[in-house]
């Protein structure tokens, strides 16, 4: 069977599964809609968190990025996993003990202030929308490539699907759909990786093949070969990279704190029954994430080696079929500058004849390794699972921010559970439409700012939540000032240095030599300094708030907190 047929079958089956789960697990109350009823098993929550977390960027783009960045790609690997240590140790158990529905809920109650709650809602919406727009675009691109429909049609199909299970099932539907999506995406990621590892190094486990010897009888280690190839062609050495240490550290830290501060990940820890379940489910989540995240750098190195040895100095007339397939999508471009019929792939842009979009490395992998067509279809289903699961989680955060934190908590407190549930569904529906709109008409800044959603989360949520738990003296004045200054500073830096407005600026103008991607670390520190200094000028929080902070530090009694 051809790729097209296989794709229809596998993608179709996976969609039928998601819809089936959505109908089976539809939400009947706000508690089911917001936190899946609060009785999710920690292992199930770990699987769902992993899928929620791993987006189209993790699945499709990350290995490709690392492949071109070499050592510098470690910022993503360490940043997007190290955040879970912060989450497990500093946030998850305490938020679970607090036991409500959303992140603004915690901030509003802990800082006894509706202003703090509203600021948190706005931050949650900014962070989630910057992130979700990229996901919807990702869905469209995957459809476009594999089902050969226009990107917009792809976005519509994705919208329809997310609409169905997010609006109908809320958190409950999303949780169980995400478990299925994790299984599909991890299987789809591992199968080609294992095949390529065996072909290239003889090791079946990609994590080992990464440090193994090449299969060609030369006895050379894969990474040594890659370093040599890079040097010959004028690129920086693969295993040492080219960014400054300082910036690498700043980006890693910003991604870690952003991971721990992203509301759609945090809310997942409200869904388990107990405090100790929240701790262990963070462990499960990271374990499941680590399977993909330790495979990605291996895929990056395999793909890089394969790419260079396949095309470098080879006659264009004899390139393999995958090369010409991807040329049609213009994601690979070859321009024979010196008309010798050979492909010169080198670092020097004046001589280089090959342009490759980084996103193709994972998608093209099965074709490069000449794997059967069903594997290629599987990768398409995996990419869609990754994008859809994250999009659904983000949309839920947006809808609950509106229905729970704005309408129920501030505008109309006497609303009935049924009405609130209706508002939650309306919120989810509107959020899907807005996300879809951005997916179809991507504003130029989306691609540039998706990675910065982490900086925004690091600059706004991370400090305010950690202080709320660990510093009893922190009051509403300090917290609100910190959040506002943190997110505004980050937005300003993004707009100026990433988008080039407000006079723009080049690398030389960066503050402290830190790129926009890493600036979340600086904005976080400024947030902390502002919070501490402002807090000193105002009275300590009321006694009942201090008692609440005391209470969330001890696990006993989370059952009561849950059924409020």
């Amino acid at each position, binding site marked *: 069977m051809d790729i097209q047929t296989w794709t229809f079958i596998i993608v179709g089956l996976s969609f039928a599964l998601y819809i089936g789960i959505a109908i089976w697990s539809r939400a009947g109350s706000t508690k089911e809609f917001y936190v899946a009823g609060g009785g999710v098993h920690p292992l199930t929550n770990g699987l769902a968190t992993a899928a929620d977390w791993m987006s189209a960027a993790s699945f499709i783009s990350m290995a490709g990025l690392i492949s071109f960045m070499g050592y510098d790609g470690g910022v993503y690997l360490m940043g997007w996993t190290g955040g879970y240590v912060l989450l497990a*140790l500093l946030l998850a158990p305490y938020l679970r003990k607090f036991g409500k529905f959303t992140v603004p809920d915690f901030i509003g109650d802990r800082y006894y202030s509706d202003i703090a709650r509203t600021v948190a809602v706005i931050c949650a919406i900014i962070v989630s929308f910057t992130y979700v727009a990229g996901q919807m675009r990702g869905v469209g691109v995957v459809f476009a490539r594999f089902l050969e429909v226009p990107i917009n049609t792809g976005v519509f199909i994705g919208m329809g699907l997310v609409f169905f299970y997010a609006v109908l099932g809320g958190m409950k539907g999303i949780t169980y759909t995400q478990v299925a999506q994790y299984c599909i995406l991890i299987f789809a990621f591992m199968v080609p990786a294992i095949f390529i590892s065996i072909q290239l190094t003889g090791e079946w486990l990609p994590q080992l093949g990464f440090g193994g010897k090449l299969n060609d009888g030369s006895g050379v280690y894969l990474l040594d070969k890659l370093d040599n190839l890079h040097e010959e062609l004028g690129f920086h050495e693969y295993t040492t990279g080219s960014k400054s240490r300082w910036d690498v550290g700043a980006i890693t830290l910003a991604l870690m704190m952003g991971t721990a501060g992203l509301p759609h990940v945090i809310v997942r820890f409200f869904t388990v029954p107990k405090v100790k379940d929240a*701790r262990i489910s963070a462990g499960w989540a990271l374990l499941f994430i680590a399977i993909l995240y330790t495979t990605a750098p291996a895929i990056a190195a395999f793909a890089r080696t394969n790419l260079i040895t396949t095309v470098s100095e080879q006659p264009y007339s004899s390139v393999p079929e995958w090369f010409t397939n991807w040329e049609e999508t213009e994601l690979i471009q070859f321009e024979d500058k010196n008309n010798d019929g050979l492909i010169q792939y080198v670092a020097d842009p004046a001589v280089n004849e090959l342009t490759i979009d980084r996103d193709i490395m994972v998608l093209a992998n099965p074709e490069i390794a000449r794997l059967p067509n069903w594997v290629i279809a599987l990768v398409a289903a995996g990419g869609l699972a990754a994008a859809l699961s994250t999009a659904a989680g983000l949309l839920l955060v947006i809808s609950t921010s509106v229905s729970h934190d704005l309408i129920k908590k501030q505008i109309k407190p006497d609303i009935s559970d049924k009405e609130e549930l209706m508002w939650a569904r309306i919120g989810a529906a509107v959020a899907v439409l807005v996300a879809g709109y951005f997916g179809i008409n991507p504003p130029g800044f989306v691609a540039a700012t998706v990675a910065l959603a982490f900086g925004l989360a690091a600059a706004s949520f991370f400090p305010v939540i950690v202080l709320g738990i660990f510093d009893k003296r922190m009051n509403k004045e300090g917290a609100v000032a910190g959040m506002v200054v943190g997110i505004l500073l980050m937005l300003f830096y993004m707009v100026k240095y990433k988008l080039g407005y407000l006079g723009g600026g080049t690398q030389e103008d960066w503050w402290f030599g830190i790129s926009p991607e890493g600036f979340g670390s600086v904005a976080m520190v400024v947030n902390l300094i502002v919070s501490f200094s402002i807090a000193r000028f105002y009275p300590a929080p009321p006694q009942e708030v201090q008692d609440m902070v005391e209470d969330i530090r001890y696990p006993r009694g989370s059952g009561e907190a849950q059924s409020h």
Partner: protein
Amino acid sequence: MTMKEQHKQYWRQNLRYLAILLAIWFIVSFGFGIIWVDELNQIKFGGFKLGFWFAQQGSIYVFVVLIFTYVWLMNRLDKTSDLDEN
């Protein structure tokens, strides 16, 4: 021991665990993976340069172990302090 003292002790022990575990978290990622990466790259095991390995794989394995260690330590502490949920 009063309830209050017991709570205080529990919290102090918790903070001690956090300090140790986060120190390890910092050393393997920012230390081995970034600050001392060049020095560690002089050491090779298999095909890996050690610093590169920490940046791309090793620290992730350590992170997983850290969380499960934390869970084990805290479950034990909950029990010995009589603060667990059952």
